């Protein structure tokens, strides 16, 4: 077997050194009734690369790749171009095949890139500090809610009507297990500011999203003001990190905690994972943060270096009193994020954001010209919702037949909300004028 270096002679010699008759001796503690005799049921023996590659390629061929035609799906994950350099960097053995940097003397590569990542995320969100990443945006959102209840010693969380339903579900799950009340405001395309009226003096935090799931961008400053007036925190969420180059970032709106999905920068679609959760907050809240933090220090010779720090918040030290149970985070995806961000620079990101916005404006204009289509999102960055005169699922199926992946039906994310005729769609720098023309033409045919 190509992955196993020991030879039969090695094994015999090692058993001899140990003083064991066979490996069975090592498994003597296993109760007899639990020993598996014979082979794993239904699994063939080991196979060469070629055979495995054939099997996997056959499965892959049954999927429609986003790059293979006009593609307009967003709603929490986005098709962007990732520079070739990024994949080369994350495939460097020293980044790919190393562990969490517990031994800083031989992990400065990982640690310095995390420090740079934290600095970039803090700057992008306009917050004081950022951690070294979470699993994804939805779990970051859930952790932010729980963190707010710790910081305020209150037990109520309010979710906006435009928060991504998956983020809302993950947040409800984590909160309810801990006896935290979760209030979900009515789903609305442009309703983030309703949080300002909902907050009361029992509220730990309000959670709003901009751009929200329907694409609507909102200045949450009035929400921050109302929340702070009641002693509550504002958690500001985004699912499209590229928007931070153009849209008002959480810190400029008075957010106390900013969380979001970083997939858009440096990471492919990957059918939903692995992604990278971004998590930032004000200086005041840093000791309540979940997850790993990288900090600057010096070594015994006075040279600058980096270490994981403030670890006493974490499960491996604080155990049942930890701020979170998170251990593994999303290191390699954070590296992809920071490498792509380094290639872009602030100005490059801004330019990329403008290109996204212009593509979405062009798409909205083209679709709005189709009789029967109504654009529902009043202000947007690179995605919006529109109403069709037909059932959205049927429309998308017919678009699919025309080779166009036209978006997500709103009823998939908001079942029971009577949005059967609403489609959520996105455009990015990957969207061409031809893609847009093809979409509009096909839609005109269908409806």
């Amino acid at each position, binding site marked *: 077997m190509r992955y196993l270096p020991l030879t039969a002679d090695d094994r015999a010699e090692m058993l001899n050194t140990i003083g064991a008759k066979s490996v069975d001796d090592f498994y003597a503690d296993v109760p007899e009734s639990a020993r598996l005799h014979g082979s794993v049921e239904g699994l063939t023996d080991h196979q060469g690369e070629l055979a495995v590659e054939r099997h996997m390629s056959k499965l892959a061929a049954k999927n429609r790749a986003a790059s293979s035609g006009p593609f307009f799906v967003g709603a929490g994950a986005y098709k962007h171009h990732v520079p070739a350099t990024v994949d080369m960097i994350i495939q460097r053995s020293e980044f790919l095949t190393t562990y969490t940097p517990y031994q800083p003397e031989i992990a400065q590569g990982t640690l310095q890139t995390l420090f740079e990542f934290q600095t970039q995320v803090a700057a992008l969100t306009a917050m004081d500090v950022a951690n070294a990443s979470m699993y994804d945006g939805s779990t970051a959102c859930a952790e932010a809610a729980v963190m707010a209840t710790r910081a305020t010693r209150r037990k109520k969380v309010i979710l906006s009507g435009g928060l991504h339903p998956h983020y809302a579900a993950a947040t409800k799950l984590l909160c309810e297990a801990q006896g935290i009340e979760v209030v979900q405001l009515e789903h609305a395309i442009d309703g983030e500011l309703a949080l300002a009226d909902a907050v009361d003096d029992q509220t730990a935090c309000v959670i709003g999203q901009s751009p929200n799931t329907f694409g609507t961008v909102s200045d949450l400053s009035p929400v921050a003001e109302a929340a702070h007036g009641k002693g509550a925190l504002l958690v500001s969420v985004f699912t499209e990190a590229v928007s931070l180059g153009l849209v008002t970032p959480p810190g400029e709106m008075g957010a106390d905690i900013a969380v979001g999905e970083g997939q858009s920068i440096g990471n492919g679609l990957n059918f939903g994972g692995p992604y990278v959760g971004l998590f930032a907050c004000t200086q005041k809240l840093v*000791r309540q943060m979940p997850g790993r933090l990288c900090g600057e220090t010096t070594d015994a010779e006075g040279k600058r270096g980096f270490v994981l*720090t403030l*670890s*006493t918040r974490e499960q491996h*030290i*604080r155990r049942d*009193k930890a701020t979170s149970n998170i251990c593994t985070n999303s290191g390699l995806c954070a590296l992809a994020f920071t490498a792509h961000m380094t290639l872009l620079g602030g100005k490059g990101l801004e330019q990329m954001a403008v290109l996204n916005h212009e593509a979405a404006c062009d798409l909205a204009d083209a679709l709005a010209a189709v009789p029967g289509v109504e654009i529902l999102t009043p202000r947007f960055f690179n995605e919006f919702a529109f109403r069709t005169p037909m059932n959205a699922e049927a429309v998308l199926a017919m678009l699919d037949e025309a080779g166009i992946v036209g978006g997500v039906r709103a009823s998939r994310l908001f079942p029971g909300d009577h949005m059967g005729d609403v489609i959520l769609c996105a455009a990015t720098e990957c969207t061409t004028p031809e893609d847009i023309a093809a979409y509009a033409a096909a839609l005109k045919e269908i409806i």
Partner: protein
Amino acid sequence: MTRYTQPTTFYTEDHEWVTVHNDLATVGITHYAENALGDIVFVELPEVGAEFAPGDDMAVVESVKAASDVYAPIHGKVVEVNGALSDKPETVNESPTEKGWFCVLEIKDGAEIAGLMDEAAYKAYCETL
């Protein structure tokens, strides 16, 4: 019940020291405790006005690799905290029994003092550890 008109220091088995003077008790951690913890990097103090029963988590003291709760040694209400520790937590290492005090409690029940160890008893206790 004895009233301590001169400052007198007592100890707990959990390595807190308590200096009693009239109605007030100043609390900190002992040299033995700070030494076992190593370099102290953070101290979380209680809020003034908070009330505690013996054994309640009153404060937290952290080194790089460990976090320990500091327990209230007696019933009491916090009347003062040592805010200087927030900026200079290393004071607990440098001067655990003087500059490194944590907080002052208003004593609720003077009789509880009798349950604490005096210096000789604490010294003997540490030698058994």
